């Protein structure tokens, strides 16, 4: 018996994404951001996208290119403070931004990936983030209901992979990637190193390939992935 081969090209993988898609994008700052998949999405030009990403990258990088190109309708995020373009797009109404507490965004995605409908939490009670949210009473306390998040597509950046889509991540390039890799019916992973089946120890695998649909090896790492001198 052998495991299926899911390898493809960046171009072919991104061509599966339709207009209007909701897309989870991994990364926290530069580490873990799938820059090559994002640049291909800019090139292909899919429109009316809803993005779910921890941050908006920085001006001229990552999903800022999608925002600047008018492809983004809504962004669900935790903090966009390093991207002045994204803030002005928000202020001028060119994009809608839904803010979420960072760990609650992670947990909503994890719940979506785990087949759950919502989480219940006290995080954000007494703040603006509680406004408009359903309140339930449990354990004698008022708690907020936070809906689980799933997307149509998840774009993942991984360090190493095999053709089945087993993935490992580098250092703080994990962040939202392992969670998002469970929370969409179409998971596309760009990977720095693709080895044959068996090249990853089963004990080292962080995202099991059964969650992953398409694996594209990066032929080179563009400047996007490098050190940012601020």
């Amino acid at each position, binding site marked *: 018996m052998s495991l299926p081969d899911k390898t493809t090209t960046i171009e072919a993988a991104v061509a599966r994404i339709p207009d209007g898609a909701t897309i989870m994008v991994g990364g*926290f*700052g*530069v*580490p*873990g951001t799938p820059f090559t998949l994002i640049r291909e999405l800019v090139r292909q030009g899919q429109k009316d996208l809803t993005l779910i990403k*921890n941050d908006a990258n920085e001006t001229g990088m990552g999903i800022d290119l999608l925002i600047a190109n008018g492809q983004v309708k809504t962004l669900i*995020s*935790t*903090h*966009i*403070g*390093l991207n002045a373009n994204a*803030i002005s797009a*928000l202020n001028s109404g060119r994009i809608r*931004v839904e*803010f979420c*507490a*960072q*760990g*609650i*965004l*992670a*947990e909503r*995605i*994890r719940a979506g990936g785990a087949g759950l409908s919502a989480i219940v*939490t*006290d*995080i*954000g009670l*007494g*703040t*603006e*983030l509680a406004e408009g949210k359903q309140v339930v009473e449990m354990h004698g306390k008022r708690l907020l209901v936070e809906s689980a998040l799933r997307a149509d597509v998840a774009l993942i950046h991984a*360090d190493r992979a095999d053709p089945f889509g087993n993935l490992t991540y*580098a*250092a*703080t*390039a*994990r*962040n*939202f*990637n*392992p*969670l998002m890799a469970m929370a969409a019916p179409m998971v596309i992973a760009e990977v720095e190193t693709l080895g044959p089946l068996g090249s990853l120890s089963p004990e080292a695998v962080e995202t099991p390939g059964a969650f992953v649909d398409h694996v594209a090896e990066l032929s080179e790492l563009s400047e996007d*992935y*490098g*050190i*940012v*001198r*601020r």
Partner: protein
Amino acid sequence: MSDANPLDARARMIARAARELTAGMVVNLGIGLPTKVINHLPADLPVCLHTENGMTGIGATLPYERADRNLIDAGGAYVSPIPGSAYFDSAVSFALVRSGRLDLTMLGAFEVAQNGDLANWKIPGKFSPGAGGAIELAQKARRVVVMTTHTDRHGNPKLLQQCTLPLTAQRRVARIFTDLAVIDVTAHGFELCELATGVTVQEVTEATGAPLIVPDTDIPTF
């Protein structure tokens, strides 16, 4: 205001705040001023620094030439591991915060109220980048302390009777380190604990936008 050099005052504030970290703690240092505390920690102090983007055991901040492109803290600074460091995803990172494993967080502030309310994420109409992990840190760390200049750049007090800005968390701040003083939030309001070198009680009182309890005893300086 004091004649002391503002750079010295800032350095003293950071050095004093660093002494809040004690052996055995798991600590999250907020983006900005609090992160500067790292440079003032004794090399042999056994503390575990946590960052929201998925690491415990943060070592020295690295210059660009020696940076690892995959290794940053939540503020985007390039950091290094130390023996015993661990990496994990964002859900694990905040599980650690929300489950009470974080002994201390030190955060920046726009405003702190005398009941311990904290506002540090939004100035409506001016600055609305999102709260990141601040709400969970402020709401769930076992002890929340703030490091901030005592007044804003226009000289307005940041320590107030009530916050005017959207809150990060209610009644969570226990202590405030400023360039003028160390102040505790007590059941009766702000209480002066320590004075910066060269600063008088009157200067602190005048720069504080709420009543300040001043103990009868000698006030230590830092």
